[in-house]
C-alpha cells in the first residue's frame, strides 16, 4: 500500500490537552520551590548557630500587617481572575490594581523592617549567620515579589489602555498562579523565620 489515505477527523473524538502556559508556569513554580527549599533548609539548619551578634529573639518583630496585606492580595487577585472570566473588565482592573497596591505595601513594609534592622539593630547580611540566612531568604522572596509586581503592573497598563480582553483570561490566570505561589512561599518563610526561628 503506497498512498496513505486521508481520514477526516471524527467530530466526536475529543482530544484536549492542558494549556501549555499553565504547565509552563507549574514547571517554573517547581523549579523555584526547589530553590526556596534549599534556602529554607539552610535557614533552619543554622537556627541558633550564630556565634555572636544579634539573635532573632532580640531584633525580629512579627510582620503581621505585611503578611495580612500579602495574603489578602491573593484574594484580590483571585477575584480579578473571576472577573475577567466573566468578561467584567472593569472589575478585573480594579481588583488587579488592589493586588498591586497590597503587594507594594508589603514591599514597603519589608523595606521599613530592614531599615530598622540595619540602622537600629546593626544586623546586616555580613554581621553573623542569622543575618546572612535572614536577608538571603527574605530577600529572595522579596525579589520574587518585585518581579511579580512588575509583571502585574505591565498587565495593569495594558488593561488601562484597553488591550486586555476576555480572550486573555487564561494568560492572566497563569500570571495569577505565579502570584499565588509567591504568597504561598511567604507563608513558609514567615513560619520558618518568625515563628519557628525565634
Amino acid at each position, binding site marked *: 500500500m*503506497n498512498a496513505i489515505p486521508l481520514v477526516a477527523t471524527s467530530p466526536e473524538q475529543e482530544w484536549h490537552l492542558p494549556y501549555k502556559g499553565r504547565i509552563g508556569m507549574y514547571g517554573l513554580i517547581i523549579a523555584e520551590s526547589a530553590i526556596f527549599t534549599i534556602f529554607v533548609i539552610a535557614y533552619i539548619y543554622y537556627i541558633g548557630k550564630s556565634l555572636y551578634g544579634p539573635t532573632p529573639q532580640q531584633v525580629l518583630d512579627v510582620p503581621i500587617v505585611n503578611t495580612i496585606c500579602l495574603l489578602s492580595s491573593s484574594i484580590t487577585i483571585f477575584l480579578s481572575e473571576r472577573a475577567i472570566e466573566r468578561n467584567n473588565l472593569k472589575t478585573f482592573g480594579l481588583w488587579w490594581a488592589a493586588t498591586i497596591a497590597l503587594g507594594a505595601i508589603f514591599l514597603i513594609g519589608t523595606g521599613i523592617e530592614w531599615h530598622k534592622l540595619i540602622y537600629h539593630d546593626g544586623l546586616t547580611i555580613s554581621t553573623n549567620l542569622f543575618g546572612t540566612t535572614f536577608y538571603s531568604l527574605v530577600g529572595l522572596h522579596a525579589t520574587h515579589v518585585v518581579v511579580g509586581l512588575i509583571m502585574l503592573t505591565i498587565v495593569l497598563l495594558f488593561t488601562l489602555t484597553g488591550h*486586555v480582553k476576555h480572550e486573555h483570561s487564561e494568560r492572566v490566570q497563569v500570571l495569577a498562579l505565579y502570584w499565588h505561589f509567591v504568597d504561598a512561599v511567604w507563608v513558609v518563610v514567615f513560619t520558618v523565620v518568625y515563628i519557628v526561628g525565634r
Partner: protein
Amino acid sequence: MNEQQKPGSHTETIHLPAPTAWPIVLAFGSTLLFAGLVTSPWISVLGGILMVCGAVGWFRLVLPHEVHEDIPVVVEHIPIETTRREVERIVIPEGDRAHLPVETYPIISGIKGGLAGGVAMIPPALLYGLIAQHSIWYPVNLLGGAGVANWRNPTTADIAAFHWQGLLVANVIHWTACVLVGLLYGAMLPMLPRRPILLGGVIAPVLWTGMLHSVMGVVNPVLDEHIAWGWFLISQVCFGVVAGVVVARQERIRTTQSLPFLMRMGIETPGLVQEHKEDDRK
C-alpha cells in the same frame, strides 16, 4: 495553529512563530549582567540595558498576540512501507489455544504464599530455640542481633535473653524476605516443568540454604557461629512447601503445567493474548 486539511486540496499555509533576535539579545544581556561582577561594573550596566531592550522587544512579539510567519505548503503523499512484510509469530500447538486466556496473578498469589510460608516456618525455628537454649528469643536474636545496640561478642546468655530491638529487626528481615521469596514463587512456579512443589518447595530451599551457608561468615559471623544448619534447613523447607502449595493453588498451576513454556511464562505476544477489536482503540 494550522488550518484544517480540506479533502482534495493541495496547498495550505502553516503559521509558525517568526524568527527573532530578541532571545539572543536578552541572553547576551543576562550574561553580561553577571560578567560585570568579575570584570567591570559597566559591563553589568550594558548587560542591564540589553536585557531591558531584549525583554521589551520580546514582549512586543507575544503581546497582545504572537507574531507569526506563514509558510506555504504542498501536500505530498509519503509512502510508509517496508520490505519486511511478514511478521513471524510464535507457534503454539492448536490444542493449547483452547486454554486461553490464562490469567495469573503472580503478585497477589505470591504475597499470600510468602506470608503463609512465613507463618509456617516460625514454629520449627522457635522449637529449635526452646530445645537448644530454652528460649524462644534465641533464634530471634540470631536473626535480628545486628539491630541490638552495642551488640559485640555476645554471650550465649545474651542471645537467649529478650531484646526488643532484636525482635523488631528480626521481624523486618523475616517478613521482607518471606514476601520477596513468595513473590518469586508467584512469578516462577508456573514456569517449572513438572512437580513445582518438589522443585520450589524442597529443592529451592536446599539450594538457598547452601548459598547462605557459604557466605554467612561474612554476612553475620555471630549467626554463623551459633546457627544449627539442620534446624535452619527444616524451617526453610517448611516455608518452601507451604508457600509453594499456596501459590500453586492460587494460580491453578497443575492445570497449566500442560501448557507450553512460553505461555507459562506469561509472554505477551500475538497469538497468546487477547486481541483488541478495532473500535476499542480510539
